[in-house]
Structures are given as structure tokens and as C-alpha cells.
């Protein structure tokens, strides 16, 4: 579309017999950055569900009444403070890019998280793909048997593949510690008999004779994926007991810690996108206590993940992102809580393709609104997609013919990209 607009403009200029004046330029559209030379191979998306309080984590306001009881601490990056809830992360901020000017117009959880995951507004008429599904659809598969998109501990209604083929939908893992269950035929069922069963299933389905509904097709695709997965050489990825006890302790023996450790084992084997959820951020009451509780987990696991990825040389190829659906209000309510605040919040990126130790954007003195360089959730999505090497201009058609683009015309944040 950009191209055709330029062509129109050039044609207009030629017809009018004038040159292109500087103020006639498309200054409003910053040039799309060139595709990264070495795109990230994988993305680990950490979704803080419920709306993470920016003031009490990544964007504290020392000395302001809105800050409440959680204090602030310096980080290893000169002049950048974090909330006192994240001391270990503060020691690793030189590897991370902070975004302090995120904003959204979606103040409800479902709509907010849908926008964060898909870059589109939740509508009744179409289900948009999550970024991980687009990556599965548009990028080459790195591991022939493991699914390209895995979600760990997510909610029950993830947008998943959206309108893309069922093969792009995430493999949901409910409990990382239990791993992938049912990946081998039941006890006593030899390989030969498992084959026989599949053949029989084919015969029984063929006998149905009914026209093939879309839902029938989708399941056939997924049964094929499941059979492929059962034969995978990489099923051991799902077995956390193969990790050293010390490392497991470092990640934390809780669903999020185990989930992040599993995420590392999966990206190590070529899974493109792994999403790990950490809920409980909806701190309408006892905000300080509850945020401390969440951060005790986040500040143990995220640093452990970054250290582990770095030690294995995977941080250069893996992009790690911390996202949430909205922030929380500067005003502390009568229940010592903070309410939803989509007008301003924070996110964090680290690893492949990301400039460390930088802060993009800033919020005003109370963290109520972005002060400069506002970033939308589609912009954030565009940044992640761009870092993965996805072409943001490419049009993907839904089955009904409607055109969509990854990140819905969001603009990558060039200042934090390498």
C-alpha cells in the first residue's frame, strides 16, 4: 500500500510538473527499517496477565505520592531506576530495553490481552492470529517434528492460530512440570498396533461419507501433527528432570519457573515461539503486597532465564519479551489497590536484536500518560515481528478474503533494535 501511494504521488508530481517538495514527503511514515541482518530465531513471550503495575515494577516514580509503599532502587544502567521489587533484574538491565510509554485503548482484560497478542482489536467477526501463529505460518520451520508454537500455562481462550490453518495453532502445555503427556502410545500398545489403529480410524472416517466440515479438516491436520510429534527425536525437551537441580532451583520450582525452563529447552531445539504466562497481576486491592508476591517470582525466574540463555549462547538468537495488557492506575484506591490503567504502562525486551541498557519513551511524572515517544501494542508487536525477520508489509488473507498484516501497521521501535 505504501508503494502504491508513492507511485500515485510520483505520478501526481509528474503531471503537475513540480518536484517533490520536502514537506510533501511522507514524513509521517518513518521508513520501515530494513530487514535485520541476523533475525532472532526464537521468541519467548512472557505474558503478565491481569495488568502489571508499571509504577511498582519497571517505571517507578521516586518521591511522588503515587509511588505508594514500594520504593525504588538503582540499576546497573546509569540513571535508570527500577522498583525495589526487581533487584535481580536491576543487575541485568544492561541487557534489556525498557519501554515506558506503552498505551492502549482497551481497559478490559480479555480485550487488552487480545490486542497484546494479536495487535488487533477483539471483534465478533474474525479471530486474528497470535504472533506465534504468524511466525509459524510465515517463517521456515526449524524443527520438523516439534510444533513451532507452544504456550505454557496460558488461559483457556488464547487467540491461537486465528484464521490461519490449524497447523499454526499453539501446542498448549498446562503444567510444565508434567511436560507433554500422552506423547507415546498407551502401555501395551506396540508401534505396529498403533499403526493399525490409525489405518482403522481412516477407514471409519471414510465410512462417514459426509461432506468435510472445516472442523473435520482441522482435526485431521492436527492428528497428523500429533503423529509427527510422537515420533520426534526431541520429546526429551519436555522432560525437566534432565536439568541439574541447581538450575531448576535458580528458575524456581513453580509453574512460571518451570515454564520458563521448558521454554529454554524448546527454543534450544528450534521452537519459534514459546509463550509463558504469569497471572495474578490484577491488583485491585493490596496492590503492594500482591505485586511483591508476583515480583518474587518474576525477579527470580526472568534473571535466571536471561543468565541461562546467555550462558548457552542462546540469548544472541532468542528474543525475550515481557508484556502485559495494561498498567495500573497511579491513584491508589480505598482498598490499597490500583485499578486498570491502559493509558500508560511498561514492557521489557531483551536478547536477539535488542539494544541493551536503553529506555524507550517516558511517562509523565505520575506514570499517568506517555510523555514522549508513545508506543502502542501493535508497535510492540511490530518490533517483535521485525526482530524475528517477519515482513510487516506482507498481506495475509483470511479465508473470507479479507487482508491482514502482521502487527496491523504497527511501527517497529527502531531505537531499541540493533
Amino acid at each position, binding site marked *: 500500500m505504501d508503494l502504491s501511494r508513492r507511485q500515485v504521488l510520483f505520478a501526481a508530481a509528474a503531471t503537475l510538473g513540480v518536484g517533490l517538495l520536502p514537506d510533501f514527503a511522507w514524513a509521517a511514515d518513518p521508513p520501515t527499517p530494513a530487514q535485520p541482518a541476523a533475525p532472532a530465531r526464537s521468541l519467548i513471550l512472557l505474558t503478565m496477565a491481569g495488568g502489571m503495575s508499571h509504577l511498582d515494577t519497571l517505571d517507578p516514580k521516586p518521591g511522588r505520592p503515587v509511588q505508594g509503599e514500594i520504593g525504588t532502587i538503582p540499576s546497573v544502567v546509569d540513571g535508570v531506576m527500577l522498583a525495589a521489587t526487581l533487584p535481580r533484574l536491576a543487575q541485568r538491565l544492561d541487557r534489556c530495553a525498557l519501554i515506558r510509554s506503552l498505551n492502549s*485503548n*482497551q*481497559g*478490559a*482484560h*480479555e*480485550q487488552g490481552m487480545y490486542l497484546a497478542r494479536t495487535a488487533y*482489536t477483539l471483534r*465478533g*467477526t*474474525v479471530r486474528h492470529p497470535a504472533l506465534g501463529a504468524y511466525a509459524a505460518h510465515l517463517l521456515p520451520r526449524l524443527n520438523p517434528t516439534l510444533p513451532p508454537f507452544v504456550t505454557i500455562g496460558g*488461559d*483457556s*481462550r*488464547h487467540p*491461537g*492460530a486465528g484464521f490461519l490453518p*490449524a497447523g499454526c*495453532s*499453539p*501446542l*498448549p*502445555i*498446562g*503444567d510444565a512440570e*508434567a511436560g507433554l*503427556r*500422552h506423547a507415546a*502410545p*498407551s502401555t501395551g*500398545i506396540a508401534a505396529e*498396533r498403533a499403526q493399525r*489403529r490409525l489405518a*482403522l*480410524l481412516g*477407514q*471409519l*472416517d471414510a*465410512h*462417514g461419507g*459426509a461432506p*468435510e466440515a472445516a*472442523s*473435520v479438516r482441522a*482435526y*485431521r491436520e*492436527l*492428528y497428523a501433527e*500429533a503423529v509427527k*510429534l*510422537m515420533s520426534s527425536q526431541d520429546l526429551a525437551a519436555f522432560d525437566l528432570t534432565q536439568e541439574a537441580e541447581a538450575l531448576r532451583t535458580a528458575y524456581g520450582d513453580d509453574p512460571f519457573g518451570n515454564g520458563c525452563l521448558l521454554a529454554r529447552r524448546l527454543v534450544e531445539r528450534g521452537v519459534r515461539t514459546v509463550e509463558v504466562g504469569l497471572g495474578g497481576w*490484577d491488583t*485491585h*486491592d493490596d496492590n503492594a503486597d500482591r505485586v511483591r508476591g508476583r515480583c518474587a517470582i518474576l525477579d527470580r525466574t526472568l534473571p535466571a532465564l536471561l543468565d541461562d540463555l546467555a550462558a548457552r549462547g542462546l540469548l544472541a538468537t532468542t528474543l525475550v519479551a515481557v508484556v502485559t495488557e495494561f498498567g495500573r492506575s497511579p*491513584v491508589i484506591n480505598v482498598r490499597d489497590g490500583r*485499578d*486498570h490503567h*491502559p*493509558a500508560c504502562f511498561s514492557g521489557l525486551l531483551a536478547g536477539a536484536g535488542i539494544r541493551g541498557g536503553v529506555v524507550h519513551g517516558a511517562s509523565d511524572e505520575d506514570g*499517568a500518560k506517555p510523555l514522549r515517544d508513545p508506543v502502542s501494542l501493535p508497535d510492540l508487536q511490530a518490533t517483535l515481528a521485525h526482530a524475528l525477520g517477519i515482513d510487516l508489509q506482507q498481506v495475509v488473507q483470511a479465508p473470507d478474503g479479507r487482508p491482514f498484516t502482521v502487527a496491523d501497521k504497527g511501527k517497529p521501535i527502531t531505537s531499541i533494535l540493533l
Partner: protein
Amino acid sequence: MRPLLLLMLCLVAWAGDSRPDPRLAAAELDALIVAELAAAGTPAQREVDEWTLLRRTWLDLAGRIPTVPEVRAWMADTAPDRPARLAERLIGSPAWNQALFCWLADLLRVQSRLQDRIPGQAWIDWLRQAVAANQPWDAFVRAQLTATGHAFSAAEQGATGFTLRDAGMPLDHAAVTAQTFLGTRIGCAQCHDHPYDRWTRREFTSFAAFSADARTEIGPGRDFKDLKAMVEAAEPPVRNAARVIGTLIGARIAPARKDWLAAPADWQYPDAKPGERIPAQALFAPVAPVANGDPRHRLAAWMTSPANERFALAIGNRVWKRVFGHGLIEPVDDIRFDPNEPLPALPARLARLVVEQGFDLQRIHLALVLTTHWRRATWHGEVPVAGGVVPGRPALRLSATAWWDSLVAICADQPDAASATDASPLFALHQQIREPAAVLEAAKRLAALRGGGGAAMKADPEMAAAAQIVRGQQRRRPNEGLVRAASLPQPAPVGHPLRILGQSDRELIDNASTQPTVTQALLLMNGLIDNEVLARQSRLRRDLEALREPAAQAEHLWLALLSRPPRADERDLAVAEIQARGRDGLFDLVWGLGNSSAFRLVR
């Protein structure tokens, strides 16, 4: 002749009830449906065969497929009106109660453990009771909107669950209330005028002002002011247990007094100034009644008034989707009609059905399943994304609940057995504890159970029962086998087959999913069929082993899984498989049908 027959039926069947015969509404709806399809140029599908209709009837109304004896009873019934009679018999049956509970629990976001350690069991009990008693929808909604007082003081207090579910979030609760009961999404307008719908921030605030002042409390309150010091002196396990007990005796809703909300500091429109009082006001006509006292009663009276067409349409449309597979309006909770304009004919008739049947969910369902439209054949074409009439029944994957409950019907001896758990141990505790020392005493008992094993539970069975409920677990009967989704913890724990199949996590309204995943395929190929359906105690396995003849086994198998006898070619295939491979062949047929698309779909 037909109208006359209809009239006679009305007189016989519904004498003594002032509500019109649901058949009349069914006929009128059919006429409107046919007109709508004709206008769209997509003729209605023919009527479906009776085998498909049998399975559809059970899945839609009982939430599961029929058992083999239930299919055989149908085969033995030769009366021409057997489909209608089956529908009438299933509506209100124990099987129906289980299915309706799950449907409502998804809508209301019912959880065994609500936030802040509040147990959900009292709400679950209340909901079960409301379903079993067929409480009219308007009364059901009013009770929950106006619930006041302690959650665990008596069984009828379970209605507090709806508000306690959103404890501490009065504005979100207002948005949830509108979405749940009015099918209207106003949540966006909490912070700014709705970008795609009509609602302004002022309208949202006025609506929330009815209920925002009804404070949810989760601590034991003023009478227990010495408790804090006593608890702080105790050991950590007792301290934690004291919080649990404190919630049990403390969780409550205080009546609302204010019927206004102050405009927040970030108000950005000229229609109010920050701090200005915005009075409670209904979202649309009719106006809310004026009365003193708790303004939630005015809200409930307005919302559930027979004159409030949106309220009737919202539940009517939900039932429509449940029965026809696709809402007249989609998503079902995003109704966008201008509330000041008359509704189009079909939605208007649907709303009128709800009101004329006295908000009776059973009779609303009955009217819809008595339409010819409900008996139409499967539709494989497109469905209107924003809702509307589909020419036939869209072929849909079974919901997670129906899928699981159908497996229960295959495996269990009594698939519709009611849950063995209720909240009475919590009510007993609430009665006993009147002072801080008693809280501490109970906390010590609760803490003693932790790590005490079976002996500790035997020594204090009352507290053990309470502790089980607090943890969100369900009591199991000896040798109970599989139980339906309604009798499991709400929702089932992560990793349970129900969750893998897409059961709602109950975090959001109607949050169940029918998306296919690899995990589901693995579960069905390598777990569920072998471990449950073919388990030694499974009813299907016992029945199959009691039958000796391969042909009889084949017939039983098809009746049990697909609710119809096998066709000749299917029977030949099955008999050959059993003759060639014996029990392995038989069991592999079970596996094959359990994994087949015919089992997975409701047509």
C-alpha cells in the same frame, strides 16, 4: 387441520397455565425464520433423519450422548411424536440439570475457589439448587444482583457469589453485569467513550453507580478486632489457616447506600467535571424505578423488568445459540441494536417468547426445540459471522463439557449422579465461630490437618470436610468412577482432560474454546480411550465382554459411541476386524470410533 390439532393440543397440554403454549411461539418463529432465509436466498435445509436428531436432542438438552439402554428405549418407541416427547422428557431431567449448570457456570465464571481465598462452593450449591428448581431467569438474576450479607451464613446466601467473584472491583463488576445479563459490552466506556458502540463514559458511570457502593468485605470485621494480635502471635501455619477461617466467617456484601459515583480525576469530556456526582441511571428505557434503600434493588427491578427487551433478548439469544448452534446475534454478549428503536421481527419475537413464558428457561428451550428449524439437516456452508439464521444445523465440534460428559455416559453406571459435595461444613463452621478465640481455635484445627495425613483427617472429620472444600476439591463416593463436569471441581484442574478439550478456566465470561490442538489429539490417541473407555471398570467394556457375537458387539459399539446402529458396510468392517483380531480388534474399534470425526461432531 394442523392449526386445529395445535389448538387442541394447547388446551390439553397446558390447561391451567396462563402462559401461552410454547408450540405457538415455535410456529411463529418458524414462519419468521423461513421468511428470513427466503429473503437471503438460502433455502432451509430439509429435516434431518431421526438418528441424527436423537443424538442432537441428547447433546443439546442433556449435555451428553445417550447410553445404549437410552438408545434402545428410543428404538422401541414407535409413536410418531417421539422426538418431541423425548425433548420434553429430557428438559428438567437430572441429565439436563448437569448440562445447564455447566452452561450457567461458564456464563457466570463460577469457580470452586474464588479470589481472596473465598470458597465458591456455596455459590455452586445455590446455582445447582436454582437449576434443579427451574428458578425463573428474572428471579435468578435479581437474587444475585441484590445479594447482601454473609456468604456462608445460610444456603440461600450462595447468591452472594456473583458479586464476591469480583470483590474489590466494582467498576469491572458493573461491566461484567451488563455483559452477562444484558448481552451488552460497556466495559470500554469505563475509561473513555466506547470506540465502536454507542456507550459514553458518563453512561457507564451512571450504570455502575447503582452497585458500586455495595462493598465486598473479606475479613472478619469489627467484632473481631482483637483477632489480629492473637493471630500475629501464632505460628505461621496457624496464621495462614486463620486467614482462611477469617474469610469463611467474614466474606460478605454490605448493602449499598450511595446511588451516585464521583467522576474520576481523569474525566475528559464536557458532560461532567472531575469529582462531580454522577447519579445512578439506567442505560436505556424504561427508566429505573425510584425508591429508597439499596439502589441495587432499583437496578435489579429495571434490568429484569418485562419491559426491558434487551434483558429478555440477551437470554433468549443465548438459548438460541445453545439450541441452534449459532446465535441470532454474535457474539452473544455484543448486542448492538439501538435500544431506542424497535427490534427487528425475529429478535423481537424471541424476546417476547422469553417474557411470555415467564422467564422459564425450560419452556424457552422447549419452544425452540419444537420448531421445525431445530430439526433441519446439518449445514456445512458459511454461517453469518455477526449472527443470524443458519439454513441448517452447523456441524460443530462437541464442547469440552459435552465431550467429557459423553465419555462419562459411555463409561459410568450412573452418568447423571449428583455431586457428593456441598457447602454445609462451611455453614456449620460459620455458625460455631462467634469470637476471636474461636477463630484461632478453628485455625489450629485446620493447621493440624496439614501434614497430619489420614489420621488427622479421621480425628477431625468436620474440619477435614471443610478443608477439602476450601481447597476446591470434591468428595468422591467409593468406586464412583467418572463423573460429569458439573460434579468436578469448577473448573476442572489444569491438565484434566476437560481442560485439554477446552473447558473454560472461568476467568472470563464464556471462556470455553473449541479450537483443535495437538494436545487433544495426543490425549485421545494415547490416553483417554485406553485409560477410561477401555478400563476394566468401564461400563462399555463390561457390556462388550458380556456379548459374544461379533455382530452384536459391533451393534453395541455403534449404539454406545455414535447413538445409531452401524450401517451394513460398517458392520462388515467391524465383524471382520473382530473375527481376525479378537479382543484387540474389538478394542481398536472402540479406539477408532472414539477418535472418529463422527464422535467429535454434533450434527
